[in-house]
């Protein structure tokens, strides 16, 4: 029933508790948005789900497609169909983007018992997906993200997502550092990939990406917990009033 089910997750970074009991359930086809002020734990949640080793989960469980996600290596999570679009995609000089994506696609195929794609089929699929996210061939023949602008890096993330066709895409502040044109292209790419079998988890600080990607649910993360959930109207309310109207209330209750 649920594609992703997060139950009471607590996580530490360098001994400091950042996530303090997160609960979240996502069904296929749904779009969820997690919003929250800086330092609330949004990116930590994305990292924990993707399997970053420096994040220590101290309590709780996560199931993804009926598997215990926390027991899987980062590569197995990816091959199971989880995709993290990085907030800060890494530059990797010397590794060609095309070769890297081909290796990633074929590793996933191998994991699912499929033959690797030959070069012709791979290029054909690549051409289709390139059009989808309006990315240029010249970028893909360069080393991974090397010398890419902020917008190009984000577009490359969405392109990789298109190539890997994940079940669940987690977009970690994909809108940060994008001008309005790039934002529109990235959002269009995401929308075109969205279908009833796939779910999307959008992590963002601002409401503006949500003008392009319509979320079914909006959650506010504050101080390591989801303090409020609602529909897309909640995002508009946040935009209008700022986070204070929620955080003040939470802080008050805490006292």
């Amino acid at each position, binding site marked *: 029933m649920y594609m992703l089910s997060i139950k009471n997750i607590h996580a530490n970074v360098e001994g400091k508790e950042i996530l303090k009991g997160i609960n979240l359930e996502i069904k296929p086809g749904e779009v969820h948005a997690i919003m929250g002020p800086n330092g609330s734990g949004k990116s930590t949640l994305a990292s924990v789900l993707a399997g970053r080793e420096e994040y220590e989960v101290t309590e709780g469980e996560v199931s993804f497609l009926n598997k215990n996600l926390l027991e899987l*290596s980062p590569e197995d999570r990816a091959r199971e169909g989880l995709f993290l679009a*990085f907030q800060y995609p890494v530059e990797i000089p010397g590794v060609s983007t095309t070769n890297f994506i081909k290796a990633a696609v074929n590793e996933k195929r191998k994991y699912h018992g499929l033959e690797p794609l030959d070069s012709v089929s791979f290029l054909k699929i690549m051409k289709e997906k390139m059009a989808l996210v309006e990315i240029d061939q010249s970028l893909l023949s360069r080393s991974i993200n090397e010398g890419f602008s902020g917008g190009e890096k984000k577009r490359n993330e969405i392109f990789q997502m298109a190539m890997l066709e994940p079940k669940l895409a987690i977009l970690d502040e994909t809108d940060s550092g994008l001008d309005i044109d790039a934002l529109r292209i990235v959002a269009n790419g995401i929308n075109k990939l969205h279908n009833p079998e796939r779910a999307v988890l959008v992590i963002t600080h601002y409401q503006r990406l949500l003008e392009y990607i319509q979320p079914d649910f909006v959650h506010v993360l504050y101080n390591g917990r989801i303090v409020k959930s609602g529909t897309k109207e909640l995002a508009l309310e946040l935009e209008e009033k700022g986070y204070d109207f929620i955080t003040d209330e939470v802080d008050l209750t805490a006292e």
Partner: protein
Amino acid sequence: MIDLTYFKEQFEQLQLEDADEHIAAIRKQSFDTFNKAGLPTFHTEEWKYTGISSLFNQTYAQIGHTITAADVAALRMPGHHKANELVFVNGRFDFSLSNILSSDTEMKVLSLKDAVNGEYRDLVGKHLNKSTEYIKDGIHALNGAFITEGVFIHILKGKIPHHPIYVYHILDSRQHHTLAQPRSLIYVDENSKLQLTETYVTLGSSDSFCNEVLEIVVEQNAIVEYYKIQNDTANASQVSTTHIRQVGRSYVHTVAITLNGGIVRNNMNLILDATGNEAHLYGLYLLRGKTHADNHTLIDNRKPECFSNQLYKGIADDSSTAVFNGRIMVQPDAQKTNSFQSNKNILLSDNATINTKPQLEIFADDVKCSHGCTVGQLDEEALFYLRARGIPKEKAEVLLLQAYSADVLAHIKPMAIRAYVEKLIYEHLSIV
């Protein structure tokens, strides 16, 4: 304890058998140095991090070999059908196994003995064994004490040979421990070009030790491209000295690749002995197992306005050891010298060791010299990025190490050799 009387007997016998007076004199002088200096120990500054005395705890056979043309065929490098192939077996140049394609109007290949007894008498007399001015240790002298059946190559004035030179050092350790002491002198004449690739192959599971000295003299407007590929077996050790003297304004480009081996010591000396010389030195060592690789470079700027650049990179995994010692000398006359050096290392294991040491000795006041060395680890962020796309950790590491190697490999100009090295590296890194 090392028994050096073995070498004394061998030396005396060689002096009787091979009586060319000029070479015999070099041998005599070298043997005296060897006797006096002995083998280098950890107390010798230049050998502080590399011990070779363990290589002398056993006897090496100096007997004939049974290498055939078929053996050679099995280990040829790509592009060989268009290359002059020179084969040394157990340190001795073997004409019958070699294959010279270039005509003698471009390049002459002779045994050292023939060279010294013929038209090249004065030239060889002038240039052979000049490396002893810089390297005075016993192991270098040991090579000089046993010069026999070495090779002399002359790239003729104004010639750019169509065919590059491949040198194979084959050590036949199928029956006995093998000691090889190859010796070569290459004279790169004015306006000519040398492209040379050297590789080392030990056959059999007994130990081998190759103590090589290669001297190259580069004249006005000449170009040298030199590639060294060391991917021998774990029982194969070597001390490999390349001594290049740029006596005319010229251009030298070298790349040394060290993958597998026992104890490997490279001395790469560049003597910039004419105004405006240019030299580029690159090195890449990817060490696993117990391999010990030591790259010692020396750039001696003797004349004004010379330029040199060095980039040596490497990794040390398992319980391997990497040593880099980069010495740059700028003599009082060498004003306007530009000399740069960079050594970058990645430590992949708690049991591996890296020693890196720049050594600048500057006696002129108008120079630009820089050096830098780093020891780091694989970029964890990059590794996670690749894994987060479904690439398993081991493969992701190989990808990153290949990428790390790429800026050195880009300097291997012949495509056949570069592709060959890339393949060797992929195989070397992929062994789990």
